[in-house]
């Protein structure tokens, strides 16, 4: 056999083995959405129960009135608004992680983007509930939308709360489209491998995808444009959420760093939530081969980086409050550190600033169990951050006569638990309905 012939044979062998690798990859990823095991049903049972607890608490609140919640003067925004900002933060990070990493051509993105985008959609669905819960008379929710009406009531466009309605709904639309467009080629694979009514459903969802050159060309173009559109949109949306606070002149709220700090915080908490969701998913669905320790290490660096931005913002806020000579601002930050909520404040610092710094150690960045634990710390820390911002500033504003404290009621706690149940239920359903990893993109990478 000549050298030329050997080369051709090698090429054929390589092509064959590449095809086998891709087939194996497809089988492994699709294996995750086969018939669920008992542990999955148990998980679903727990999350649905949590959701029902939350739903029952909300129903009780609607029936009884807002008095069952702990919010009252001077703290008119409590756990509900905390939950809203927390879930919006989680929501914003998913698309941002996916879109920005796509634009930066970061390969490890393919291991996290599907879960991150799904998380985004479910988190917006969760976040969207909280303004309704907080409204009290939920049946008047449509008053937030401007439409021609005889009731002579027009929404206040100068209110950041109304900006929120538009920002969050636009964001939900773009994120859902971004996620769905990315799913189309994979749904087409499911259409090929499934039978019966499932085949019909996936055929409907795949929008006639055949994988032709022209379709791929259009797909790549639209995906790139959506990523480019989603990135500034995410920045703007979470900035608008931050302005719900920063536009007010309450001490601790009225600060210019809020917009970028909220965006960084959103990526931080979102990355942590991705770890919380993906690490067990990787283990249960045996995806260790596809989501490697190297991928986690890179994602951990992102967590560390955003954690440091958050830490920077904490330091700057505190120091400038001391520097400003403004007694209200200074007093607010001293109160945060040593007042009634000192425990939540220092716990937040420990979770969001101190703990992530351990990720400077390479060994810890590569320890999956450690990352899982860290993700919990960050989730807790970021929830507490929102609690501290929302509650402490209101509890301790300008006039000592109006100061007061706030303790969440059992109803608020139940609804918060319910929100986690609601979010996790959707995620569990997603993990058994659609591929949790982007098959086509991973195949492309394997080429």
């Amino acid at each position, binding site marked *: 056999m000549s050298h030329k012939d050997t080369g051709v044979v090698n090429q054929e062998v390589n092509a064959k083995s590449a095809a086998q690798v891709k087939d194996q990859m497809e089988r492994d990823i699709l294996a995750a959405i086969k018939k669920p095991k008992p542990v999955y049903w148990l998980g679903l049972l727990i999350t649905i129960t949590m959701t029902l607890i939350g739903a029952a608490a909300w129903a009780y609140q609607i029936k009884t009135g807002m008095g069952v919640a702990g919010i009252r003067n001077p703290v008119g925004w409590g756990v509900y608004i905390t939950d809203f900002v927390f879930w919006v933060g989680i929501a914003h990070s998913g698309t941002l992680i996916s879109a920005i990493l796509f634009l*930066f051509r970061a390969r490890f993105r393919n291991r996290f983007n599907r879960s991150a985008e799904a998380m985004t959609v479910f988190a917006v669905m969760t976040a969207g509930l909280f303004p309704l819960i907080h409204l009290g008379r939920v049946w008047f929710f449509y008053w937030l939308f401007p439409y021609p009406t005889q009731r002579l009531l027009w929404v206040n466009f100068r209110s950041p709360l109304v900006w929120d309605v538009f920002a969050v709904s636009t964001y939900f639309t773009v994120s859902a489209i971004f996620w769905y467009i990315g799913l189309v080629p994979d749904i087409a694979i499911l259409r090929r491998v499934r039978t019966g009514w499932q085949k019909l459903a996936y055929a409907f969802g795949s929008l006639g995808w055949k994988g032709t050159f022209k379709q791929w060309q259009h797909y790549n173009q639209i995906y790139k444009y959506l990523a480019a559109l989603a990135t*500034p949109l995410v*920045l703007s949306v979470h*900035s608008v959420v931050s*302005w719900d606070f*920063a*536009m007010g*002149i309450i001490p601790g709220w*009225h*600060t*210019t*760093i*809020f*917009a*970028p700090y909220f965006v960084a915080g959103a990526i931080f908490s979102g990355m942590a939530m991705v770890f919380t969701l993906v690490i067990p998913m990787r283990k249960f669905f045996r995806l260790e081969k596809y989501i490697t320790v190297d991928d986690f290490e890179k994602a951990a*660096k992102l967590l560390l980086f955003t954690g440091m931005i958050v830490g*920077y*913002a904490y330091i*700057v*806020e505190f120091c*400038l409050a*001391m*520097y*400003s*000579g*403004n007694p209200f601002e200074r007093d607010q930050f001293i109160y945060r550190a040593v007042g009634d909520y000192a425990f939540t404040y220092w716990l937040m610092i420990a979770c969001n600033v101190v703990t992530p710094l351990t990720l*400077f150690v390479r060994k810890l960045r590569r320890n999956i169990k450690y990352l899982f634990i860290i993700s919990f710390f960050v989730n807790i820390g970021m929830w507490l951050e929102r609690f501290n911002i929302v509650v402490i500033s209101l509890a301790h504003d300008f006039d000592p006569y109006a100061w007061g404290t706030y303790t969440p009621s059992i109803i608020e706690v139940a609804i918060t638990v319910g929100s986690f149940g609601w979010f996790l239920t959707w995620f569990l359903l997603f993990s058994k309905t659609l591929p949790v990893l982007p098959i086509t993109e991973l195949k492309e990478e394997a080429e």
Partner: protein
Amino acid sequence: MNGAKLNWRTLLIATVVIAVVAYLMENVLLAAQGGALLVTLLFWVTLAHGPIAVVAAADIVSGKWIQPYKREILSVYPFGLVIPVLFLAFVPNLKYYIWYHDQGVWLNSTFFITRNVVLLLITFLLARKFALESIKEGPKKSTYAVWYVLAYVATHTIIAFDWVMSMEYPWISTLFGAYFFVEAFYAGIAFGGVMTFINYANFTKEYPIKVFKKSQMDMGTLLFGFSVFWAYQFYSQYLVIWYGNIPEEVSFLARRVATSPMREFAYSVIVLLFLIPFVTLLFRKLKGSPGYLLFISLIIYTGLLIERVLYVEPHLTVNPILAIVEFALVGGLFALIVQSRRLFLKLS
């Protein structure tokens, strides 16, 4: 590039000479308030640290696009030594700061000078460590990169708060520090744009044209991205202050947009730092043109310079003749440093 070259000794001598000349011009010859020197410092400090931060960030994330530019961009690190010396020439003008005659713990002239000089020197030393390690692709380049970025962020935050914000005391903006280090980063990327044009022949000789063009396009895309990010930060700061409408805050804006010609300068900053780069860099053809990258980089530098005049002028008089002379002297030194890169980067 041929021409005059510097070594550490001649660099130090030149720096001290420029600092003495600037001091004499501001304090003896014209009895000016140091405004021109502060504008010069605020502008050139972005180019002393920003370009190194760009390489450090690229090294941390293993960005390959930086490779062709690395040597040229890292060549600016010795300029970091010029800044603290020039800052010392500015020190006598601290007496014009609003807090000078009623000093506290933080706004205290001794502490003010010490912390700034120490931070500037630390940043310079870390820049040197990082540049020498990165140019030889040493194993510790990422570690030094992280340390450098931390020092860079701290230094530019303090520069923003001390050199500019304290002039306006009690005005505060928590975003101001971040705004400054992002701007310096933007200036650092723009330096890549300048070098694309100046060194184009060498780049294309050393690297396959396809490889270099890819890096150049990435550079253009980064400039585009940072034009958007700059606008975002600008708007985030502006909106909160404008909407809050608190007298001690909004006066910062009022001083800069209420009267002519400050108003026109203020608007031109938005045009130069955002509108022109944003609109034109949407076009691939322009991003691919070395001449256009030079043009857009100079546009960005003009915007940054005007913005610095806007910061300083309401408080310290900026004498235009002094500003031009000092700016040109420091700029000349900067160019000489870049030309002397073989020596400073220990290249054979």
